[in-house]
Every structure is written in structure tokens, then in C-alpha cells.
């Protein structure tokens, strides 16, 4: 439809809010740029207060940037109301009209999206079932639990079968079962050819799911790329090789291993090799003294460590900058 260009293109977006007694303008986003490509799942990662919700509001034209541009499907985001038909959005901790039932609310959303009566009925039943709320369709939203509200938020975002789905903290407030269901749902959206952009401050949700990650901290982008890219080319930090039975006492220090790189754990000897080549060398050495390999695991740097590194590194720069 819109060729092969990016689905979302944020470029040079800054946003400040007046804060405190003197209404001093404080920067919430500074010169933020990133893209979301077609049929990608992109995670928007950052600690609380990083500016994720503000960015997502700007994508949905609920807030306006001070400078910079945001295009979605090649058009200024949301400027033409009709263009929002292609987007499904779930706000952070969504708020609903509590006097409506789930089904009534879905019907209202259907009308807002310009769907026909029959389509509204069919799609809303389908989506409520999809998120596991079919039993609660006739229940007043006032009586919904937090998890149910989150599910209803997802159902209304998907009601009109949008090409781009934007979710603000879709997994927050859900139990492990619920988190898994949301993860599956996002994967299914990708399989159906949709593009998904979602924010989270929980790394494992992003790591497991995303094609790419945009990491922000204090309104500034600190990293962007595929999970593999962010972890370095191979991503392997060290190779952990476990041997059994134990080599003779004193062998390790004689072979030049430090306490760090080779240690006895129970009745096994655990060796941390720099890389595969190094691992093969030690496997040969240990075989000679009768110790055999029981397991060999390349240990990858986790996104979490990158995240902590970036966020801490950023904080250090702040400190240096005064």
C-alpha cells in the first residue's frame, strides 16, 4: 500500500513540559529519532519516566512535539483523522466508560472506527473471545479486574483489524499466564503481516519477542537495533564447559587457570573459556588428565546487561556534564 518505506518514522522529536511552581519547561524528549519497518515487532524499552508514553501519545496525536516530525504510513501522524483507521492503539492502563458493558464499549469503538453494524457485532465477539473476555461481554466495565481491563484494551485496539498496532505497556498488570498470552498475540499479529510497536520496562518481554529494540533513557535514545546487534556480533560472552570427574588436585593452578576461569563446584569442574577455540584447547588438556566434558554452554550477554550498561553509562555522562 505504502511501498516499502518505514511504517513509523520519528525524526528529531523534542518535547518539553512546564513543571513546578515557576512553570519552567523541562525536556521530556530530546531529539528522538527511530524507525519501525513493515511487519516488524519493535520494542520500546526504557525505565519508568524515560518518555515512552509521551512518545506514544505523540504517535497518536494526543500530544504535539515541540520540534521534529512523526510520519506514519508516509503521512504526518494522525493529521488526517481518516488515516488513524489503519492504527490500533492501547494506552497505558487504559481507562474506560465504566457505565458501559464490555460489548457496549466495543460497539462504541466500532462506530468510532466507521465499521458497519454487522461487522461490529462479528468482530467484537471475535476479539472479546480472542482475549478471553467472551464471558464478561455483558458485564459492566466497573466490575472488571485490572487484568480484564488490560484485555479489553487489547480487544478494542484490534477490533478494526489495523495494520499497525501500538501498545503502551501491554504486559503490565498481568500475571505470567496473561503475559504469555499477550506475547503469543503479538507474534500472531506479526504472522498476519501486521506491524507492532510496544513499550515496556521489562527486558525479558522485549528480548523474547522483538525483531528490533529502541532503547531510551531520560528522553534520549541510547540504543537501537536488533537484539543480536545490540549484543555484539556473536553475542557470546564466554563458553562455560563443565567436566567430570575432577582433574587431579593442584592441576588447575599448574595449568595456569585462575580461580575465576576454573573452579570446582561439587563433583564437577567448571571452566569459563574466552571463546570456542579456547574451549577446545582446554577440552584437550583436561581429557589428558581423565576429565570429560558433561556440558558446554556459550553464555550470551543478556539484553539486561546492555540495558543496565547503557542506562548507567548515560547517567555517568550526565554526571560529567554537570
Amino acid at each position: 500500500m505504502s511501498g516499502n518505506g518505514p511504517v513509523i518514522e520519528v525524526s528529531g522529536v523534542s518535547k518539553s513540559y512546564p513543571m513546578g511552581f515557576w512553570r519552567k519547561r523541562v525536556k521530556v524528549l530530546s531529539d528522538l529519532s527511530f524507525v519501525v519497518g513493515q511487519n516488524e515487532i519493535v520494542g520500546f524499552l526504557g525505565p519508568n519516566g524515560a518518555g515512552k508514553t509521551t512518545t506514544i501519545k505523540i504517535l497518536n496525536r494526543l500530544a504535539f512535539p515541540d520540534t521534529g516530525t512523526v510520519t506514519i504510513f508516509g503521512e504526518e501522524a494522525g493529521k488526517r483523522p481518516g488515516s488513524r483507521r489503519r492504527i490500533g492503539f492501547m494506552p497505558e492502563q487504559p481507562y474506560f466508560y465504566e457505565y458501559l458493558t464490555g460489548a457496549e464499549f466495543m460497539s462504541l469503538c466500532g462506530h468510532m472506527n466507521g465499521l458497519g453494524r454487522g461487522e461490529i457485532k462479528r468482530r467484537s465477539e471475535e476479539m472479546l473471545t480472542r482475549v478471553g473476555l467472551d464471558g464478561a461481554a455483558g458485564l459492566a466495565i466497573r466490575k472488571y479486574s485490572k487484568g480484564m481491563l488490560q484485555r479489553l484494551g487489547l480487544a478494542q485496539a484490534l477490533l478494526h483489524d489495523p495494520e499497525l498496532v501500538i501498545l503502551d505497556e501491554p504486559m503490565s498488570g498481568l500475571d505470567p499466564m496473561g503475559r504469555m498470552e499477550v506475547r503469543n498475540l503479538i507474534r500472531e499479529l506479526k504472522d498476519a503481516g501486521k506491524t507492532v510497536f510496544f513499550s515496556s520496562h521489562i527486558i525479558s518481554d522485549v528480548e523474547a519477542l522483538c525483531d528490533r529494540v529502541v532503547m531510551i533513557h531520560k528522553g534520549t535514545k541510547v540504543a537501537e537495533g536488533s537484539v543480536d546487534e545490540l549484543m555484539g556480533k556473536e553475542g557470546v560472552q564466554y563458553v562455560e564447559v563443565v567436566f567430570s570427574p575432577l582433574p587431579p588436585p593442584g592441576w588447575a593452578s599448574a595449568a595456569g587457570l585462575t580461580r575465576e576461569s576454573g573452579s570446582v563446584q561439587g563433583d564437577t569442574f567448571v571452566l569459563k573459556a574466552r571463546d570456542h577455540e579456547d574451549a577446545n584447547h582446554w577440552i584437550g588438556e583436561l581429557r589428558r588428565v581423565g576429565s570429560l566434558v558433561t556440558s558446554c554452554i556459550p553464555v550470551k550477554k543478556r539484553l539486561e546487561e546492555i540495558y543496565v550498561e547503557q542506562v548507567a553509562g548515560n547517567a555517568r555522562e550526565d554526571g560529567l556534564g554537570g
Partner: protein
Amino acid sequence: MGGRIVSIAANTFRETIRNKILYAILAFALFVIGITYFLADLSVGELTRIIVDVGLASIHIFGVVTAVFIGISLISQEVDRKTVYLILSKPVPRWEFIVGKAMGLSATLALTTLAMAAMLFLVHLGYERSPEPGILIASAGIYLELVLLICLASFFSTFTTPVLSAIFTLSMFLIGHVSKDLIVFGGRSASAAVQWAAKVLFYALPNLENFNWKNEVVYGGVRSPGVLGMAAGYLLCYCAAVLTAACLLFSRKDFK
């Protein structure tokens, strides 16, 4: 477009009709109107007049109270509770939201005004044994005034707090009933500038006396349909202007 506005209006109607404060006010108004039946018994003089005067005044006051106090929270509540996110992120232009909200509350107040007018009509009928259609016409005038106040309340609430919106809207209500005097005062001034300013103010401020059909209707001298039509036309133009301003202010609003 029409479908979305009607949906927003219907949802607002549903929301406001379930408002407990509305029922409290309505119940109290019906009680006051009902009690005039017995009050009239106690007093000397023109009994019918008392029933109609007190009754129409009740319809007016209770109507204004509901229009202002529900009107000011109509939009601000949606913004504060963030329900607006789910509507405005969909293909809904912001002006449709404002117009739909105002239409929804107008529908609710049509129903409550009708209930009060019907009550007064019946009380009067029970006392006088002859129907007085003037009561219904005067109530219709009150209703048009309420619609104008809803639009003003919506307008103020797009840029200020509910408390200030209430103060501004109530001020407009009070000024709106004496704005004709502005022209009179202005006319007395020797300064052309003052005369001119008075005229500008007169046209900017609502002239709510246009909708005051109490005396003429109930005590003879029925207004011609032409005058009623003019009042309706005035309402339409004034509301269109106020809502346009409200929509412009709302269109670039940043939500918290």
C-alpha cells in the same frame, strides 16, 4: 461523520442519564412543582399565577443548575479520566467529539425539562381544569437557553478548570438576562466609543431574554411564530460560534 457524532451523543446521553446528581435535582424540582398545588391553596390572590410562576422558575433554575454543573465536567472529566485517549486515537476529528458531547447532554436535558414541564402542566390542569399550552411553550424557551449554556460550559471547559468554567458560565447566565440593558446604558453615554463598545458587547454576550417566553405566553399576547423562529435562529448561530471556538481551542490540546 454523522454516525460518529450520533454515537458520541448517544453515549453521553447514556452517561448523563445515569448521573445520580441529575436525579436528585430532578426529584427535588418535581417535588417543588408538585408542592405549589398546596401552596396555592394557602395564599390569597391569583392562585394560578403562583403555580405557574413558581413552576416555571423551578424549571428554569433546576435546568440551569444541571446544564452548568454537568456541562462543565462533560469534557474535562473525559480528559482527566483519560477516556478521551480511546476515542480521539480513532478516526474521530476532535470537533466531532465536542459537538457530540454537547448534543448528548442537550438530549438529556430535553428529557428532564419535558418531565418538569409535564408535571407543571398537570398540576395546573388539576387546579384550573383547563389546559395551558403556554406552559409548554415557555418551557421550550427555557430549554433553548439551557442548550446555549451547555455550549458555553463546553467552551470554557476546553481551556480552564471546572470551577472557573462554572463561574464563567454562571456569569454569562446572569449577564445574559440583562445584556439588553447594556445598549440602554451605552446609548446614554456621550462617547461614541462607549456606545460602540456597548454594542459589541451586546452582540458578543448571549441575549438570553430572547428565550424568555414566560410572561407573554402565560398571560396572553402569544408571541408570533416568527419571533420564536428568530429565537431559534439566534440560538443556532450563537451555539455554532461558541462551539467553533471551543473546537479550535480543543484541536491543538495536549493531553496530560
